[in-house]
C-alpha cells in the first residue's frame, strides 16, 4: 500500500508540472510564465524529495535541495530582473493562437502516452505512471520553444524542457548518479547564463527582444 501513495504522489506532482507548462501556452504575459516556471521547479524538487524518501536514497535529498536553490529561486529571480529590464509585458501574437496551441499540446501529450506504452510493460517501478507525463512535458515545452516569439519565452521553454528531462530521470531511474547530477546542474546554469547574456546582446543591438527581427542571415 505504501507504494500506492508513493506512485499517486509522484503522478500528482508530474501532472502538476505538465499543467504549469500548459499555463504558458494559455496565458499571454511574461510574468505569468515566470511564476509558472517557478511552480514547476518547486514541484520537481518535491517529487525528487518524495522519491528520495520512499526510495531510501539520501543523496536525492541533496539533489532536491540543489534543484530548489538553483531552479526554484535563482533562475526565476534572474528572469524577473531580465523581464523588468526589457519591460516586455505582452507576448507578441504567437504564430499559433491559444486555442490551436492547446489542441496541439493535447495531441502531443496523447502521442507521448502512445510512445510510452512499451515502457509501462517493461518496468514495474511504482513511479512508472510519471514516464508518459514527463514525455508529454518534454513535447509541450518543445512546442513552446518553437511557437513563441519573445526571446525570454523561448528561454523559459528551454528551461521547462530541462525540467522535463530531469523529471524523466527521477521518475525512470530514481535519479542519475551524483556526479552526473552535478554535471547536469552546472550545464543548466551555464546554459541559462549564456542565454541571458545573449538576450541582453539582442536587446542592445536590435533594441527589442522579438525574435522576428533575427532574419538577416538567410540562404
Amino acid at each position, binding site marked *: 500500500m505504501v507504494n500506492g501513495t508513493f506512485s499517486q504522489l509522484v503522478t500528482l506532482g508530474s501532472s502538476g508540472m505538465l499543467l504549469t507548462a500548459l499555463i504558458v501556452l494559455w496565458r499571454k504575459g511574461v510574468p505569468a510564465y515566470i511564476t509558472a516556471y517557478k511552480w514547476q521547479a518547486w514541484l520537481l524538487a518535491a517529487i525528487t524529495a518524495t522519491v528520495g524518501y520512499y526510495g531510501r536514497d539520501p543523496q536525492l535529498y541533496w539533489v532536491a535541495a540543489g534543484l530548489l536553490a538553483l531552479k526554484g529561486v535563482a533562475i526565476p529571480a534572474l528572469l524577473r530582473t531580465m523581464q523588468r529590464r526589457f519591460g516586455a509585458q505582452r507576448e507578441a501574437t504567437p504564430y499559433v493562437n491559444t486555442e490551436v496551441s492547446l489542441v496541439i499540446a493535447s495531441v502531443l501529450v496523447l*502521442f507521448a502516452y*502512445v*510512445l510510452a506504452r512499451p515502457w509501462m510493460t517493461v518496468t514495474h517501478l511504482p513511479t512508472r505512471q510519471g514516464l508518459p507525463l514527463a514525455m508529454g512535458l518534454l513535447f509541450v515545452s518543445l*512546442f513552446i520553444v*518553437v511557437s513563441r*516569439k519573445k526571446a525570454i519565452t523561448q528561454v523559459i521553454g528551454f528551461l521547462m524542457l530541462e525540467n522535463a528531462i530531469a523529471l524523466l530521470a527521477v521518475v525512470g531511474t530514481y535519479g542519475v548518479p551524483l556526479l552526473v547530477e552535478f554535471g547536469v546542474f552546472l550545464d543548466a546554469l551555464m546554459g541559462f547564463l549564456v542565454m541571458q547574456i545573449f538576450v541582453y546582446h539582442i536587446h542592445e543591438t536590435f533594441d527589442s527582444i522579438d*525574435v*522576428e527581427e533575427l532574419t538577416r*542571415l538567410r*540562404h
Partner: protein
Amino acid sequence: MAFGSSALIVMVVGYTGGACLSLLAPSERLARAFTALGAVAGCVGGLAAAAGVLATRVPVEAMLPSLVSAAGGIVIRLDMLGAFFLVLIAAVGLLAAIYGITYTAEYEGRHSLRLFGLMFNGFLLGMTLVPCAANVFTFLLAWELMAVTSYFLVMTESEHLETRHAGLWYAVMTHFGFLLLLPMFLMMAPGGDATTFADLRAGAALMPAETRSGVFLLALVAFGSKAGIVPLHVWLPRAHPAAPSHISALMSGVMIKLGVYGLLRVVVDFLGTGPAWWGGLVLAAGSLSALGGVLYALTENDLKRLLAYSSVENIGVILLGIGAGLVLQSYGLRALALVGFGAALLHTLNHACFKALLFLATGNVLHEAHTRNMEQMGGLIKGMPQTAILFLIGSAAAAALPPLNGFASEWMVFQALLSGAQIPQPEVAIGTPLAIGVLALTSGLAAVCFVKAFGISFLAMPRSDNAAHAREAHWSSRAVMGVFAAGCVVLGLMAPHTLSGIYRIVESLSPRTPPAPSAAVGSVWLVAPNGIAQVSPLLIACFLTSVIVVLVAVLRVRGVELRHADTWGCGRIQQTARMEYTSSAFAEPLRRVFSELYRPTEDLSISVHPESRYFVRSITYTSQVVPWIERAFYDPVARGMFACATQVRRLQGGSVHLYLLYLAGALMVALASAWWFK
C-alpha cells in the same frame, strides 16, 4: 626486365623533378627551362620503357603495395597495349615540350610560369601513368591527376571570361566521366578487395550477362566523355581553344586517346566477347560522333574550335573501327575483328600525329597573327611559307588524301567495315555498309572543312593588318612541326609495317585469336582482310611524283613564260581583301543543305533612310549555329539543378522558429519510425 622498370623510374623521376624544379625556380626563364628539361627527360624515359616492352613483348611490372594498402596499393604493369599508348604520349609530349619553350615565352609577364611548369609535368606524369596502371586505385589516381593538372593548364590564359567558362565545363564533364569510372570498376571487382587488373579480368569471366552489359555501358559513357563522343563532347570545342596551343595539341592528340585506351582495356581485354548489340552501339556512337563532329567543324570560324570538332570526328572514325571489331568478334570472326581493332589503333596513331601538327601550326599563327578567327586571317602563306606547307600536309592527312597517313588508316577502317558484310545474319550485316556510307560522307565533308581551314586562313590576300605583318615563328617550333609532318608522310608510306606491329599488339590483348592475316605480301602493300583487296601508298606516291616530274620536264623543255598581273575581276579597278570568299561564305552551301541539322538562327535587319523607304542605308545579316545538342541535353539538366537549388535555398529562411520546427519535425519522424519498425 630491369631495363624496363629502370626506364619507368627515369620517367617518373624526370616528371616529378621537372615539376618541383620549375615550381621553385628563381626566375621565370629558369622555370621555363626546367619545365622543358623535366618533360623531355620523362618522355625519353617513357619512350625507352615502351620501346623495350614492344620489342621484347615482355610486360614490365612494379609493385608498391605499402602505399595506400587499404585501397590495394600502387601497382604498375606495362603490357603491349599500354606500351603503344605510352609511345604515343611520350613522343607527342616530348615534341610539345620543345615547342612549349618558345611558345610560353610570351607568357612571361602575364602568367606564372612556375605554376605552368608544375602542371605541365604533372599532366604528362598523369597521362603516362594511365596506361601503366595495373590496379583500380592507381588507374583512378593517374586519371584524376591528369584531369586536375589539365584543368589548370586550360586555365592558364585566365584573363578571358570564356576561358573560365571553358575550364568549368571541362572540369565538370571530366569529373562526370570519373564518377562513372568508380562504380564500373567496383562492379567488376569480385570480392571488393581484389582490385588488380588480373583479378578484374578473371572476375569479368564469371560475371552474369547483365552485369557485363552494365559494365560495358558505364565504360562506354565514362571513357566516351573523356574521348569526346557526340553527346558528351561539349567540353572539347570549349577547352581546346582556351588552352595554350601545345597543350591543346597534347590534349587533342593524346589525352582523348586515353578514352580509347580505357574502352579497349575494359571492353576488349577484360570483358572479351559480348553480345552483338555492344558493337552496334559503338558503331552508332562512332557514326554520330563522326558526322556530328565534322558538321560542326564546317561552320566554325575559330580555327582551334574547328580542329577540336575535327578531333571529335576522328574519334568517331576510331569508334567505327572498334565497333566493327566488336560486331565481328561477337559472331566469332576473330581474324576480321583483329583488322577492325588494328585499323582503330592505326587511326589513333595517325590522328595524334596530324592533329598535333595542325594545333602547333595554329599556335604559330596565333603567336604571330594574334587571332584565332579565320575571318581576320588570309595571305599567311606569304609571311609564313614553312608553317603554311606544314599546315597543308596536316590538313591533307586529316582529309585522308592518298599518300599520307590519314588515307592508310581510313582505308583500313573502310575494309574492316566492308568485311562486316560477311556476317551470317543479313539484317545485322546491313549495318556495316551503312556505316561505310556515313564514313564516306564524313571524309568528304572533312575534305571540304580542311580546304576551308587552309584556303581561307593561308591563301589569297590578308584580311587584317595583323595577318599582313605575320612572320615566321621561332625555328624550333618549325623544326618540331617538321618532325610531325615527316611522321605523317612516313606513317603514310610505311603503313604496312606499323599495321603488322599493331596486329601483334591486338593479338596480345586476346591470346585466343588465330595469327593475323598474311600481311607479309610485301611490306609495301596494305592488305584488306583475307587478301581480297590491296593498296600501296608507297607505289601511289612513286607513280604520282614520277608523272609530275615528267610533266615538269616536258614543260621546262618547251619553255613557259610567266607574266604576273592582277587577278581578273570583270574589269574592276582594284582587287581588295573584302572581295574574297570568307570562311562562313565557303561553308554556306553545306549549311543550307544540312539546315535541318544545324537549325541556324538567322536575323536580317535592313535600316532604311528616314526620308523614303526605297533608300536602304544598311543591311545586317547575322546567322549563328548554336549546337542544339547542348540546348537539348545540357540546358534542361542545368536548369533542373538550379531549380532544386533555389528550392533548397529557401529552406534556410532565416527565422529561428522555422529551424526549431525542422528540429521538432525530425524528432517526430525519428520517433514514429522507431515506434513503427518493430
